[in-house]
């Protein structure tokens, strides 16, 4: 009985929307840069996904707390400062405890700041909603992002290196698809993934009007 009622609560809806129906990458096509650049290995993808999730949740919490005292005109700069503060802490954390991953991600950790998903959630949700829902929304968007990132990374890592999380999964004679480790592989895998997911959830873009 209780399970059925959960379906109609607000937090459940927010969670479901973030992960599937409003998935930031597949439906809205935001935050692509980091999604493609770091998704050639699963461990990098997991680190990046968790980093972004943390930054979205923490900045949603902060923005939601101070949403009533931010002047309308300087709100963008305020978001920027909050987001970059948390990004710097993620960067410092990675450098302190996971030096190898920090090296592999390089400048892309810093680029969490300009990940449109983070900014988009602050503007669209955290600036208007109470703290507890903002945190759930941040978590859902972050998880939707991480899910896509890890899927793309798994496909690319298996094809490009024959490994999964650094464990050998393909036969040792596996001919490596070098292009999968480079930029074009990311583009192709993501395009096909978007296609598959859009067919599954029946979300289609209208054909663009050209001049």
């Amino acid at each position, binding site marked *: 009985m209780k399970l059925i009622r959960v379906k109609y609560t607000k937090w459940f809806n927010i969670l479901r929307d973030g992960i599937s129906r409003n998935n930031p990458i597949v439906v809205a*096509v*935001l*935050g*692509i*840069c*980091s999604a*493609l*650049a770091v998704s050639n290995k699963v461990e990098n993808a997991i680190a990046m996904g968790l980093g972004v999730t943390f930054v979205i949740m923490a900045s949603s919490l902060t923005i939601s707390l101070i949403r009533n005292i931010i002047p309308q005109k300087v709100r*963008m*700069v305020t978001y*920027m*400062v909050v987001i*970059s*503060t948390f*990004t*710097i802490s993620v*960067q*410092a954390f990675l450098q302190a405890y996971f030096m190898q991953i920090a090296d592999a991600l*390089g*400048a892309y950790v*810093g*680029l969490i*700041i*300009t*990940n*449109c998903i983070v*900014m988009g959630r602050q503007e669209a949700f955290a600036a208007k909603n109470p703290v507890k829902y903002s945190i759930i929304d941040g978590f859902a968007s972050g998880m939707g992002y991480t899910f896509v990132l890890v899927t793309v990374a798994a496909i690319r890592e298996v094809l490009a290196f024959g490994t999964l999380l650094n464990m050998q999964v393909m036969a040792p004679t596996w001919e490596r698809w070098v*292009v999968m480790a*480079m*930029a*074009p*592989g*990311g*583009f*192709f895998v*993501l*395009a096909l993934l*978007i*296609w*598959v997911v*859009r*067919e599954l959830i029946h979300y*289609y*873009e*209208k*054909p*663009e009007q*050209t*001049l």
Partner: protein
Amino acid sequence: MENIIEIIVSSLTDQNIALIYILGMCPLIAISTSVKNAKGMGYAVIFVVTLTGIINWPIYMLLKSTNSTQISLLVFIITIAATVQFLEMFLAKFSPKLYNAFGIYLPLITVNCAVLAVSLFFVNRDYTFVETAAYSFSAGVGWMIAIVLLAGIRQKINKFSNLPRGLTGKAIAFIVLGILSLAFIGFTGLSFF
């Protein structure tokens, strides 16, 4: 001098910031529906990237001399936001024609990762001031090449081809980008000297 030419050529071709480093994707996908808009966005990006690269270099040196490079991210992003804001006000006041042409693209540039990435890359690569200026300008031009190429191809696709429903719009743009990126990888190893 050879060094400068090498930086310029490589950031236009085999180190292209959009197609090889995959940066600035959100505006690249969103605005590449027509060549006209793509050009406008391209010019705005060249302008802002060059300006912020030149401004951020002395600021980074200042941070380095006071040993506080941890906060460089925060400082860079504030510089970029301030530059864009200032540019917007400056153009609105002194050159309304240019302002109308750039108008809608300028605010979007603050969240263009390519702009921040250029500032982070010159730090990683220890560029001198002249190298930084050359690199940031040519990175902007490289980004513009990518968006104009993509916009041209998408325009033709919309007119002449019959795509599966799920692939229309943004998904096909990624496939086109992948092919373009393959082509640009072909430039690897290019050298003049």
